[in-house]
């Protein structure tokens, strides 16, 4: 082979198989072949830049720019780099929740990517609906729980608070260190009214007592703790004014006995105990005291009962 042709051939071979060693100085080439040598060097350098860019892209490095201006050999690779950079941005937007992103002009890849974004959006919408449905169910359940809780604290016959509510409130107030009074009330004669007149009459008698007791204080809790037994829990009251208030209410009830249509004696007995803010006595003791005072009251007023024909 001609020595010049051999030199150019070797350079090209090195450029392909041993690129690090490939070297050619066009100035050493005779003038007739110098432009060919320059073109060859330019082409080899252009390809080398393309290879470097391809390696960078393969490593995921999308922001490098190893190209000389005007390297037309690299234009396809540069378009690929631009597409990947754009896809990176689009994927970041999708990751942030923008499911309106669409890829275009990238053939099958566009279709696959757009399908994926649509599926992600669909799944997100389904999950949103599921979460919303879950919230609604949860709210409905919570409403049911609230309703049941409310029911569990009420006496079904009168609608006022029941024993459970009364005892829990008492313990809660004690835990909070609050001062209040406990008033036990026993409705006199209820058994007699039930037996002699009817349970409907007995219920009316209870309803009348409830109306009366609720007038104790609008902030007090009136609880039915047994068939003919009630308890009032009231903050901001002391024993003496509470006794006076109960005496007033009892007198109101006794006044019913003066009405001509009244067929049985209306009366109630009560016992009050005041609970201090840091009262050392256990609740059971306080309840016993209130109960005892109520029975003392009942015994003391037994003789007052009016007898009806």
């Amino acid at each position, binding site marked *: 082979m001609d020595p010049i042709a051999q030199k150019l051939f070797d350079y090209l071979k090195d450029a392909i198989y041993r690129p690090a060693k490939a070297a050619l100085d066009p100035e050493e080439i005779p003038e007739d072949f110098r432009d060919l040598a320059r073109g060859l060097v330019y082409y080899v350098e252009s390809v080398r830049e393309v290879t470097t860019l391809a390696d960078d892209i393969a490593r995921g490095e999308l922001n490098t720019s190893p*190209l000389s*201006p*005007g*390297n*037309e050999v*690299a*234009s*396809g690779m*540069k*378009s690929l780099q*631009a*597409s990947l*950079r*754009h896809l*990176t*941005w*689009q994927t970041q*937007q999708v990751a942030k929740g*923008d499911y*309106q*992103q*669409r890829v*275009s*002009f990238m053939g099958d890849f566009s279709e696959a990517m757009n399908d994926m974004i649509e599926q992600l959006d669909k799944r997100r919408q389904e999950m949103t609906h599921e979460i919303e449905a879950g919230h609604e169910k949860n709210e409905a359940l919570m409403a049911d729980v609230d309703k049941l809780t409310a029911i569990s604290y009420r006496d079904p016959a009168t609608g006022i608070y029941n024993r459970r509510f009364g005892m829990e409130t008492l313990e809660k107030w004690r835990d909070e260190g609050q001062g209040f009074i406990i008033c036990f009330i026993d409705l006199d004669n209820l058994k007699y009214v039930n037996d002699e007149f009817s349970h409907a009459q007995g219920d009316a008698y209870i309803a009348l007592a409830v109306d009366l007791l609720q007038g104790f204080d609008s902030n007090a809790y009136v609880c039915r703790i047994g068939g003919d037994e009630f308890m009032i829990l009231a903050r901001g009251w002391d024993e003496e004014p509470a006794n006076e208030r109960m005496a007033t209410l009892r007198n109101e009830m006794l006044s019913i006995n003066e009405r001509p249509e009244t067929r049985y004696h209306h009366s109630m007995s009560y016992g009050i105990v005041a609970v201090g803010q840091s009262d050392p006595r256990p609740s059971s003791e306080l309840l016993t005291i209130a109960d005892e005072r109520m029975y003392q009251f009942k015994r003391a007023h037994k003789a007052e009962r009016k007898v009806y024909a």
Partner: protein
Amino acid sequence: MENVFAAPKSHNTFAWENLGNIKEGRGDLGEEMPVLVYRLMQFTMLDILTESYGSEKANDLFRDAGFLAGTEFAKNTLDLNVDLNAFVANLQKALEDLKIGILRMEAFDAETGNLMLTVGQDLDCSGLPLTNETVCNYDEGFIAGILEAYTGKHYEVREVDCWANGDRTCRFRGTVLQD
């Protein structure tokens, strides 16, 4: 003879409405024309401007014209009250529909407002013979005008890669200028 019905404005001062009713005016030929005609006008105009003012000034004038076009285009055809992603999506669609180019966002810095985007198959330069120079000065202004209309910030947009210097995609860097 004075025509009292003629519009008082001159066509030498741009106004969006002076673009006229193209659909009606070109009932048979339609609203589209070959890119060749667009480039014929643009590059002959560049030639004459360069001859008169030098290439740097000619490029500046092209950039300024592009800016005016971008601002008016954004104000008259785009919804400027949506979030960035929706705005970019709308812009992409508008540029595709009008066959201006394929816009692709590569990076956006939410803090500074700086961005990098590419325009593929660009109306101005795709397929131009290689000259080792960036030629999309009109595009630079056009993009800056759009960005300014949307963000209210002053942008300097420069083409960092151009088809005419061997890249198949034109890449633009937009930098917010501090007032």
